[in-house]
């Protein structure tokens, strides 16, 4: 009896120790995010306060207001006001550009990869067995190698300084992997289901959208999330393909808060929080499907 109690106690201590370690690691990982959030909620005067405070002594939405209402960073009273010259005044444009480019490239990648995967797994023609491997080969080339050739292509197409250049650029990165993912996923969907629906009288198209697509939903969500991450987080393509400040996406736009030596940390952190929130929220909503999508594709592929 005594040894049982002792081992129980030991178990509890071990568990407690484990939780402490896990909490510590979690805190380490989350700290940068916490610090960004905290800094973004401080007024500019408190950001460099000594000692530094994790929880602001005075909560302020000053940084967010600057971004959303477009505060002129450079305006000095007594001089002539020139509109749209200061970075925060473009923040909402950058946000819109990021959303447009992300949504556009994701839509194209997902639609094309889904239809391609369906074709590769359901119809018979020469080459259908090795096309997926070729597409994966394309994905293995790092984007930095592709950026200059792609830039020349954009010049020839007349798409430089145009959001379409980013959309197409991101599609070229995400489409190969999305196609590979969807191909592996579709291979796991039994063809008998479609045959049963065909015998029931459904047309091919109806079978595709009523039977196959709902079953492919986890894979589609996984492919969409991957595409969104690629597009939302990209810096390189945007830096090279876009010139004018109002056409930049968020990743390059917020770099304008670095002014030589001085960094406007308040605006920077507020931007960081606003950049992180959409994807974080999306992840929370679809995380269940994400795991299912990647897992199922891996196991069945």
């Amino acid at each position, binding site marked *: 009896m005594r040894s049982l109690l002792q081992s129980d106690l030991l178990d509890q201590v071990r568990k407690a120790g484990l939780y402490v370690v896990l909490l510590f690691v979690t805190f380490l990982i989350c700290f940068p995010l916490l610090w960004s959030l905290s800094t973004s909620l401080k007024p500019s005067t408190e950001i460099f306060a000594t000692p530094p405070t994790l929880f602001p002594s005075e909560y302020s939405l000053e940084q967010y207001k600057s971004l959303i209402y477009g505060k002129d960073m450079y305006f000095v009273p007594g001089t002539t006001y020139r509109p749209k010259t200061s970075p925060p005044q473009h923040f909402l444009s950058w946000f819109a550009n990021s959303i447009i480019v992300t949504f556009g490239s994701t839509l194209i990648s997902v639609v094309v990869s889904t239809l391609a995967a369906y074709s590769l797994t359901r119809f018979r023609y020469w080459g259908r067995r090795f096309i997926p491997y070729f597409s994966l080969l394309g994905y293995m080339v790092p984007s930095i190698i592709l950026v200059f050739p792609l830039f020349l292509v954009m010049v020839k197409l007349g798409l430089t300084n145009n959001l379409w250049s980013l959309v197409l650029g991101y599609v070229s990165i995400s489409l190969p992997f999305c196609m590979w993912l969807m191909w592996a996923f579709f291979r796991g969907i*039994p063809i*008998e*289901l479609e*045959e*049963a*629906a*065909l*015998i*029931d*009288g*459904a*047309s091919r198209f*109806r079978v595709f959208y009523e*039977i196959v697509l*709902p*079953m492919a939903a986890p894979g589609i969500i996984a492919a969409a999330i991957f595409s969104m991450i690629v597009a939302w987080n990209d810096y390189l393509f945007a830096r090279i393909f876009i010139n004018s400040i109002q056409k930049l996406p968020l990743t390059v736009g917020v770099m304008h808060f670095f002014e030589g030596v001085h960094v406007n940390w308040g605006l920077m952190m507020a931007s960081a929080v606003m950049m992180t929130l959409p994807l974080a929220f999306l992840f929370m909503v679809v995380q269940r499907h994400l795991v299912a999508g990647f897992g199922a594709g891996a196991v069945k592929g």
Partner: protein
Amino acid sequence: MDVRLEKVTKAFGSVVAVNDIDLTIREKEFVTLLGPSGCGKTTLLRMIAGLEKVSGGSIYFGDRLVNNVRPGDRDVAMVFQNYALYPHFNVARNIGYGLKVRKTPKAEIERRVCEVARILEIENLLKRKPRQLSGGQRQRVALGRAIVRKPFLFLMDEPLSNLDAKLRVTMRSELKRFHIKLGATTIYVTHDQLEAMTMSDKIAVIDAGVLQQFTTPQEIYNRPANMFVAGFIGSPPMNFLAGTLSHENGPALDFGFTRQPLPAAVHSVVRDLPRGKKLILGVRPQDITLTNPARPEGLPAKVWLVELVGSEKLVDLSCGDDVKLMAEVKAEEDIAVEQTVGVRLNPERLHLFDPETGRSLRD
């Protein structure tokens, strides 16, 4: 409406899966396509369903050529081996899908789905998803999906093979009952000869894409057309003994260690065959009698294995140098390993085959 197959062929590249099959399935008949795995029976069924294109030949439903008719327009229903239930629909939607696609009014769909669910005793499952059902329940739902459309032709691709043995026996009789009640033509594919024998009006035995025999179960059992059919039908399988023909004292087969007179049914066929011709004698285990080990009569044989299967015993015997036989006797018979028994073959139940063609020799 009959289903008529004329010289139906299917080739996948250089592989001929179905070779020149002629078959007529009469209205309301229950016909089984029986054969080992890979023999082409499923491919043939899929061609009738419209899921595979026909490489050669024609398929008629009545007078209508259906080679190029879409599966959905053929008025057939199919039950798949893995049931193929739509996982994201509940049972009611699964059953009613075919009706919905054909724009049947909602009230009518509901009425027919409930009726079918009642017949199949799955009314309490209508709101469940397939993943929440057992194998037997899924099978009923798959059946319900086929029945509800009241098609003229039912196609079933080994629907019982994923069920446990006990459930298989129950479902076999239920399927037969449904067939009689619905009065629809049914084409059933299986590799299980017991299913074929118990359920069918007629059996089409197929091997390597070629039709071997198409007749009633009784005929197939009693008068198999060739060695393949003879060996495939019947459990335990038929024994085959190779011998040479002799005409001394009447037609008989010489096995070296013994001489077996041939049944009257084959006398007219073997009369013209030369002496010494190699022939194969076929005898079913059930048609072998074992005589008392104490006073063996007939051909002496040594018992080397006895298997009890309930009311019968399967006895492995060896005669002569290397001839192996299997006999089926009543469980009460006192036979033990290493005993020497007498083997008597029922002369009226013997089959004779030509070893070169494999074909059965009889009048």
